[in-house]
């Protein structure tokens, strides 16, 4: 087990390095630079700025300088947000992104599992149709649209929840943004759960259990749920990654801090350091989540061996 985990962790390092390299060079291909604002900078100022951020060095030298610093845990300065280093920005934004992502993940998974299971048990009956319809709507409505609608209805007309912001960290501020994130995640989970549950309910051992006269609840609880969970669990890794990376629109609409928002503004402003920093952090999170899911999967499915 320990060997398995450490092998996985070690193999993540070259992946991360390749991605950082790709990202570093791809970004420089993009037109525009961090200092192309609305107003022209005097050439002297521009030269000073470029020298300050080492942008005047040959690209390859900049790359080694960056990687060298990175290996020492230094993400470098932000070129657009002068008052913070990239590491400082990430440390401030990360808790918000994680809080948002994880609360949506937990709620969405539970809602999705329950909805999917209910739907499967009532296959091709009215509750199934209604649930499938709801799930699909959750899946296909773009989240910026959902966010705007919820904001208007629950924030302005009904005035039940704050329409945005996170000024005092209260739960109420979380309700709308988390809901926007929960819907598609619950939809995806429910869709999978329904499929795999229907399949499990059709297998021979469930039929046998039914024939033995066991009650439906007992059959579900004891025999159906665990095998039906398998495909869902293998989805949870990517699912959580989507939530964490997908929160950027929610952060934008609800004016929440968070690394997704920093990433967008950094990419649009060509803040090279911050783009790389957020990408690395996201990658790290995704790798960690995938590892965690694999371990859970192995625990659920005894057929999987650590090889």
């Amino acid at each position, binding site marked *: 087990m320990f060997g398995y985990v450490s092998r996985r962790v070690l193999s993540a390092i070259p992946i991360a390095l390749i991605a950082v390299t790709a990202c570093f060079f791809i970004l420089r291909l*993009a*037109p*525009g*630079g961090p200092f*192309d*604002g*609305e*107003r*022209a*900078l*005097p*050439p*002297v*100022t*521009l030269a*000073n700025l470029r020298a*300050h951020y080492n942008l005047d060095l040959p690209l390859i030298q900049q790359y080694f300088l960056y990687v060298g610093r990175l290996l020492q845990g230094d993400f470098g300065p932000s070129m*657009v*947000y*002068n*008052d*913070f280093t990239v590491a400082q*920005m990430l*440390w*401030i*934004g990360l*808790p*918000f992104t*994680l*809080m948002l992502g994880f609360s949506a993940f937990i709620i969405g998974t539970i809602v999705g599992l329950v909805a999917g299971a209910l739907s499967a048990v009532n296959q091709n009956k009215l509750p199934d149709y209604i649930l499938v319809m709801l799930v699909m709507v959750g899946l296909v409505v773009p989240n910026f649209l959902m*966010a*705007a609608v919820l*904001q*208007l209805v629950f*924030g*302005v007309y009904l*005035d039940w929840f*704050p*329409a*945005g*912001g*996170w*000024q*005092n*960290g*209260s739960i109420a501020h979380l309700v709308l943004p988390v809901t926007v994130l929960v819907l598609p995640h619950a939809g995806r989970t429910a869709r999978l759960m329904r499929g795999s549950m229907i399949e499990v309910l059709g297998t021979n051992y469930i039929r046998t259990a039914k024939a033995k006269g066991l009650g439906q609840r007992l059959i579900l609880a004891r025999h159906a749920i665990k095998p039906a969970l398998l495909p869902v669990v293998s989805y949870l890794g990517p699912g959580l990654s989507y939530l964490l990376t997908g929160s950027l629109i929610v*952060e*934008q*609409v*609800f*004016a*929440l*801090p*968070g690394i997704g*928002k*920093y990433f967008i*503004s950094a990419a*649009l*402003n*060509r803040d090279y350091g911050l783009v790389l920093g957020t990408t690395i952090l996201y990658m790290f999170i995704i790798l960690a989540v995938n590892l965690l899911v694999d371990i859970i999967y192995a625990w659920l499915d005894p057929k999987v061996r650590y090889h």
Partner: protein
Amino acid sequence: MKLTQTLTAVATAGMLSLLMSSAASAVTLNMMNGSEPGSIDPHQASGDWENRIIGDYLEGLMAEDANAEAIPGQAESYEISEDGLVYTFKLRDGVQWSDGTPVTAGDFVFAFQRLFNPATASDYAYLQFPIKNGSEIAEGAITDFNELGVKAIDDKTVEITLEGPTPFFLQALTHYTAYPVPKHVIDKVGDQWTQVGNIVSNGPYTPTEWTPGSYIKSVKSETYWDAANVQIDEVNYFVQDDLAAALSRYRAGEYDILVDIPSDQAEWIKTNLPGQDYFAPFLGVYYYVINQEKQPFDNVEVRKALSMAINRDVIGPDVLGTGEVPAYGWVPPGTANYEGVEPYQPEWIGLSYEERVAEAKTIMEGLGYTASSPLTLQLKYNTNDNHQRIAVAIASMWEQIGVKAELFNSETAVHYDALRAGDFEVGRAGWLLDYSDPSNTLDLLRQGIAQDGATNWGNNYGRYSNDEFEALVDQATTEQDLAARAKLLGDAEKIAMDEVGAIPIYWYIAQNVVSPKVTGFVSNASDIHRTRWLSKSE
């Protein structure tokens, strides 16, 4: 470990602020402030959203009143020499930083030296170039900072010497580039001085919390010299890029002031939030630049036809729905130091729109451009709802005169990169005046400066060039008599506009929305509203 600490800190801060807001009934102003501040260091800032924060925590020798006119700030009085070259400021008694350290003349000298220091690479240092040797130091030609025209006569007296008489200099001193910075803090912590915990203020407020991407909170500073007259206890400057969401939050009572509105909502706001709309002209021009190094745009007639065919009367009221005023000249109406100059009007102003189109069409046909063989050009703009609408409308107007405009939008950085590189035919630009003086917009059309074998055109993206215009503007910089100076600049404006050096489209309108709870908000030409003049009732 560190994560849990941060989470705990967030939670604690949340609870504390909840407690605070419920216990003491502090008056809090919630301001939707647009983008994330890039920096609140006055030497690094570049946007109005940064200015709103900086101007509340730092105060220069001169400050703005509610109308954004220059009034004494940290200085109690000033004297100007006969020749208009030497300004002597006396600091108020007892002005101090929020940590109790006195504000001295040395802080100002330090601040100006830091502003011009090439290592600081301040974007806006050029605004203070009227100061003697300022530009030379910024360009690295002079390395001895003591040669700068800012001197401390004693702890209480600042003497500023200028290159030439500058009628708008007092107004220029209200700009954040002229604010003092705390030498004693910067000496200790360097560039980290603007971080909460290090930062000190000499203005009415002190920043106490900063969550990037969310908000900055400033609380009233008791050490400010006029603290007794400051009504609002705390200000939250919220980061909010999504304007539709901003209006929703305003309506939900979460914001007291909006500094911008979503397009298409102006009518709705006027109807449904009566008395809360503060839409007023302010000094700025929205314009299109034409690349005059490319064929056939070097031809004045082509530029004139393009300008004539734009129906400016429908853009503000109909396309944008906000009612921006059509612009035909280059200096916004209401600009100071421009008294006695008639607003510029092109010779074709008297024609109806149909007549203008007919004439423009004739011009273009004369050059061989017709509907069947149109002049094809690329119209570039930076991504934004309003810019897009205007571009779509103008492209359709130009279609009538045999011009086919392809639209191309890109992010701000890419757009301005292309404009500066001359990689465009027609491009969108805008200019908000840094200070109220005609030279601030006319400088946009000045010739490029030869540098390292290339010409640096600065903000003159269209590369307009006219020696007569150049001579008039140069002459104006040394002219001491304000009326004569205005005349020279007025003549210059006429030359540039007759030649359509750029196509002005409309004068900007400030689009503030202010809650009825807030009093003291005055629409003004600079669109600067310092919190110290506001008050709020619950």
